[in-house]
């Protein structure tokens, strides 16, 4: 290997990206018909220096974007009450509103006291109310938290607005590209670059506790897998064997990393114990075996293999043993991802020249194709299992999309960067 070191020139750009870089717009391309009418009234603001984040605006956008709610714009509202006494429920009933959210933000020496209440418009009764304190920097987070509380109260499902997403962007200038591993809020705000390189970065994978990200970097002109601690930026190189070092996947207990290595000649699945650094080889076919993913109970690993001629998904015990083919429909099934409850398996499903996101019911093995793009890749489940985030392309535009598990609801998240790929929703 040493002669390769000699020819390595530094191909890495060091950079410090303090804050929001890629801003994003979200379009709801398909929503549910049964969306609940809700009005989020602009919160009353008090305080000398104003409030840097419009909390009610963020909550309104979160709820609307989820597809579960139909929001009312503030011009159409019959009033902007900020206390329970000021609400004229009849006016809101007349507008067909089911739910109403009001609130206040009071600034006090750099601290913000935020309170909100959710009302059932027909019963004229409060359903929920919270008071919380926030710094200026945490106001968006507070807003997403409010959205989560409202969402869970009204749908019974856990909200995912406080989550984060990791993804890779590439910006090409002439023959050179800059690759970045970024993390943003679930709505695309607060994008931060946690790694940047002139060589490719790939395959970000969140640790189950959400504190670390494993990824592949070609910064030394060959592949290596790193684990980076988000809070400190410190990172450890965990795999740098000859050939492929790819497709890292955390075990559900966070103690192991499944990965792909080709050090023995062709790509096989291995499990690396992160405590002992012991490496166990799980597959040893003469074909490509890659893209391992763990079942949520940790007992099984599903991976992509072309041992049958075309890439298909196979399942085996995470301890090793017999491999069983899972997919039979279509000429390309790859990059599996389990739903948090383990009942569904999302994948890239290729038929002809189209690559789409499909989901398999693990009990019946029925395959349901959820998207209709030509180049849909890298499915990642939301932590509540309701949506699948994936990378998509139309012509020269690449973007992230989310689709509900039944395919009925779709959102498109458009960033301003040239290329955006490989999204991963935080746990």
């Amino acid at each position, binding site marked *: 290997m040493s002669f390769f070191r000699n020819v390595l*020139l530094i191909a890495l750009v060091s950079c410090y990206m303090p804050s929001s870089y890629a801003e994003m717009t979200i379009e709801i391309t398909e929503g549910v018909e049964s969306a609940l009418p809700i009005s989020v009234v602009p919160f009353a603001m008090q305080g000398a220096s104003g409030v840097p984040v419009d909390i009610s605006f963020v909550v309104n956008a979160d709820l609307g974007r989820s597809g579960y709610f139909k929001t009312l714009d503030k011009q159409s509202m019959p009033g902007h009450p900020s206390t329970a006494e000021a609400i004229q429920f009849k006016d809101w009933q007349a507008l067909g509103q089911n739910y109403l959210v009001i609130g206040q933000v009071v600034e006090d020496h750099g601290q913000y006291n935020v309170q909100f209440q959710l009302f059932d418009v027909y019963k004229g009764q409060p359903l929920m109310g919270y008071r919380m304190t926030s710094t200026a920097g*945490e106001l968006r987070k507070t807003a997403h938290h409010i959205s989560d509380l409202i969402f869970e109260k009204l749908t019974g499902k856990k909200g995912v607005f406080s989550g984060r997403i990791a993804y890779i962007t590439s910006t090409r200038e002439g023959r*050179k590209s800059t690759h970045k591993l970024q993390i943003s809020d679930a709505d695309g705000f607060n994008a931060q670059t946690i*790694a940047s390189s002139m060589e490719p970065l790939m395959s970000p994978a969140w640790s189950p506790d959400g504190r670390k990200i494993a990824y592949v970097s070609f910064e030394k002109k060959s592949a290596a897998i790193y684990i*980076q601690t988000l809070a400190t930026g410190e990172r450890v190189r965990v795999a740098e064997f000859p050939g492929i070092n790819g497709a890292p996947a955390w075990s559900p207990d966070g103690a192991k990393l499944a990965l792909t290595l080709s050090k023995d000649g062709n790509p096989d699945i291995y499990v690396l114990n992160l405590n002992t650094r012991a490496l166990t080889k799980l597959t040893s076919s003469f074909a490509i075996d890659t893209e391992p993913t763990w079942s949520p109970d940790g007992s099984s690993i599903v991976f992509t293999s072309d041992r049958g001629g075309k890439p298909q998904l196979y399942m085996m015990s995470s301890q090793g043993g017999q491999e069983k083919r899972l997919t039979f429909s279509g000429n390309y099934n790859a990059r599996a991802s389990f739903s948090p409850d383990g009942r569904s398996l999302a994948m890239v499903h290729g038929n002809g*020249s189209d690559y789409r996101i499909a989901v398999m019911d693990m009990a019946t093995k029925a395959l349901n194709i959820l998207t209709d793009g030509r180049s849909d890749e890298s499915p990642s489940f939301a932590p509540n299992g309701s949506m699948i985030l994936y990378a998509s392309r139309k*012509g020269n535009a690449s973007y992230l999309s989310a689709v509900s598990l039944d395919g009925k609801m779709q959102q498109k998240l458009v960033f301003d960067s040239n290329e955006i790929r490989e999204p991963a929703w935080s746990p």
Partner: protein
Amino acid sequence: MKLNKAVWALAISAVILSGCSEDEKDASLTDGSQNAASGINDASTSGLNGGSGMSGSDMYPNAGIGPEFSDPNNPLSKSTIYFMLDSSQVQPDFVPVIAAHAQYLVAHPGQRVVMEGNTDERGSPEYNIALGEQRAKSVISMMKAQGVSESQLQAVSYGEEKPVAAGHDEAAWELNRRVEIAYQGK
């Protein structure tokens, strides 16, 4: 008060990746001015790495090795092997090119080459890494069969990560399904 106060997210700090650093802890700098300075240094260094400089270096990437590599009548001037969709089988058209490189490498046992395997953008990125490696290894095994020493040959796969053609249609995909024969020390 159910707000999660962990707010690890807000504490994410940007990290400097250093291509040369062996000590991973050194890779993380927190001082802003240092970051800015090293950013400039690295950016200019990578500018040198970008090649160009000499005109024609794109067409004949191994021109620095010897004059035969930029002679359009010499098969050594060709350094890219193209592949069919989802295939790592070398097409007959490229057999003479690989043979010429094999012959050169047998005659120059100190010369090393990296076979850089690439794919088009369709399908899954990690699967494409594996496919790109298979393409690189197809070329390597042909060279080995013609007497090139294993120690002269290395495979690297970039999968779909390093397209030469920026488009998103069949014309671009054809150009991106390739192995580049990269002579070292050029």
